[in-house]
């Protein structure tokens, strides 16, 4: 039945839902910024202290006066995520190439669904298995006091981000025109030569997008890392050392702190930094995509 009122309310609700999608990330950013600001304005810490000093001893009261250096957590996140990328990227690329170039039928029918199922496995399950299987394993193999380490965190994260990178990379490789491959095969190139010298360079920018998406996921992952990395808030002593990351300190400390206290304000600041980092990754992806589009023209 046609009625003008119905049309108008319908359009209003559709637009409202679109607007909500814009409002949500902005609102999240604003709330975190307001809360995180307290560390600087109410408790008079400086940004330099926050970013470049290493003593994180904020007081759990309204007076403040503690030390707020988050460098350990920032560096901890960087190291663990970097290690995860180092482990995951070669495997992801190999799996993506296998799916598209080596065994397309077998790859799309079996390996691709399997990889996508990996995406859905909850992070706490990864963390729990990491803690009950991987940590004791590392401890025995390398004769450590405890297997909880940067390496354990890197491995768990690598397994978690591997599927995201693989699916994006496989799509990117598949999008390379068949004619490019045909031309190279026609000149007598082997499959590896075609893959290595023609297909991969052509798919480069899109593959990079997948890697950044994986990195973003690794940065935001909290509980799985917290379960295997230990609780030492110091720079790790090598790959078997323990450290803390931005997400693990939030996950393990937030609940016990008083609302409005200096220590809690510090955690809100870290949460805001996490928000900024994920924004940064999105912009990075857009810049890379824009550059790739320019190159193709």
């Amino acid at each position: 039945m046609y009625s003008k009122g119905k049309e108008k309310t319908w359009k209003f609700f559709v637009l409202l839902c679109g607007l909500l999608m814009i409002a949500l990330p902005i609102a999240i950013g604003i709330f975190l910024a307001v809360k995180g600001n307290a560390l600087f304005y109410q408790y008079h810490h400086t940004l330099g202290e926050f970013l470049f000093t290493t003593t994180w001893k904020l007081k759990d009261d309204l007076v403040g006066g503690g030390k707020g250096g988050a460098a350990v957590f920032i560096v901890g996140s960087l190291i663990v995520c970097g290690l995860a990328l180092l482990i995951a990227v070669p495997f992801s690329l190999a799996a993506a190439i296998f799916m598209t170039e080596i065994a397309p039928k077998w790859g799309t029918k079996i390996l691709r669904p399997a990889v996508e199922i990996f995406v859905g496995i909850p992070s706490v399950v990864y963390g729990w298995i990491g803690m009950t299987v991987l940590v004791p394993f590392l401890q025995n193999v390398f004769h450590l006091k405890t297997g909880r380490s940067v390496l354990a965190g890197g491995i768990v994260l690598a397994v978690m981000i591997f599927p995201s990178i693989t699916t994006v990379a496989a799509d990117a490789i598949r999008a390379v025109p068949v004619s490019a491959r045909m031309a190279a095969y026609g000149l007598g190139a082997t499959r590896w030569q075609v893959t290595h010298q023609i297909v991969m360079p052509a798919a480069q920018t899109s593959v990079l997008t997948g890697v950044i998406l994986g990195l973003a996921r690794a940065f935001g992952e909290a509980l799985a890392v917290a379960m295997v990395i230990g609780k030492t808030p110091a720079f790790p002593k090598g790959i078997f050392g323990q450290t803390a990351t931005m997400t693990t300190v939030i996950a393990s400390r937030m609940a016990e702190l008083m609302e409005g206290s200096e220590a809690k304000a510090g955690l809100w600041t870290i949460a805001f930094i996490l928000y900024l980092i994920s924004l940064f990754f999105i912009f990075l992806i857009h810049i890379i995509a824009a550059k790739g589009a320019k190159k193709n023209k």
Partner: protein
Amino acid sequence: MTEVKNEKKARVEVSQSLIRRARAVDNIWTVVFYLVALFFLLLLFAFAGYVIIKGFTGAKPEMFRFDRNGVGNYFFNTVYLVFLSLLISVPIGVMGGIYMAEYAKDNAFTKFLRIAIETLSSLPSIVVGLFGYLIFLVATKSQPNLLVGAICVAILSLPLMTTTTEDALRSLPPSYKLGSMGMGATLRQTIQSVLIPACVPRIITGVILAAGRGFGEAAALLYTTGSDTNIKWNPAAWVNPSLNPFNPLRRGGTLSLKIWTSFTASVGAEDVANLSSAILMIMVLSFSILAHYLEGRIKKKMGDTK
């Protein structure tokens, strides 16, 4: 004469050895790729199998009960929380997808909206959880409850619902819309009674995927739902609304939070965490396999009509 012949022969030999080398390298890499693929298939099966078998072999019968010591109530909370979150995210996400596919113009605003959706989908779940904690618990001074957790999970699954709906609408043949509009239907009527019904199978696939992800969510619930649960199934106890299982404004730990608290708890909680992992694994696996099966069927059907 012989010199020229020798040179030719030497050249042929060099190029032949180059080809041989290229082929050998090619073979080596093929083997490497096969090994990597095999490794991951094995890893997935070993991982899933280990979690499920270990969980059920270590479980005692009383752990399956829906009471204080069992994981039954946590299982109920998990399903109920995801159900509540879908009640929020499906209508909003579908409407958002309709906006993107049918109403959005090709301008700066739409571009901005797309970036916003991308941002939303890449936000760490712990950040979304903190946001929910801040505006629904700290600002309103309420206690942790299921509804706030459901809102956080809904926020996390909104981008998936929106893009699924948008893709589904865009992949419909234009004749659907043209036919309906040609009969004199308005755009609203066309969307409501022609386009959306045609998209239902795909939207359901999206809902199943979103549910599968929601089951395992933990970081967003850490500060929003409370990690324990004390619901009672005897209606006589429901005088106290915090004991009523169907009250969304009560505390309610999920299976994933049970696993997380086992990490921080003292020894003895291991068997419960193993069983929780196994149940979660089965839920997630069955939902994602179902989603893949449906997607495959939809693709097949679309292929047939062409």
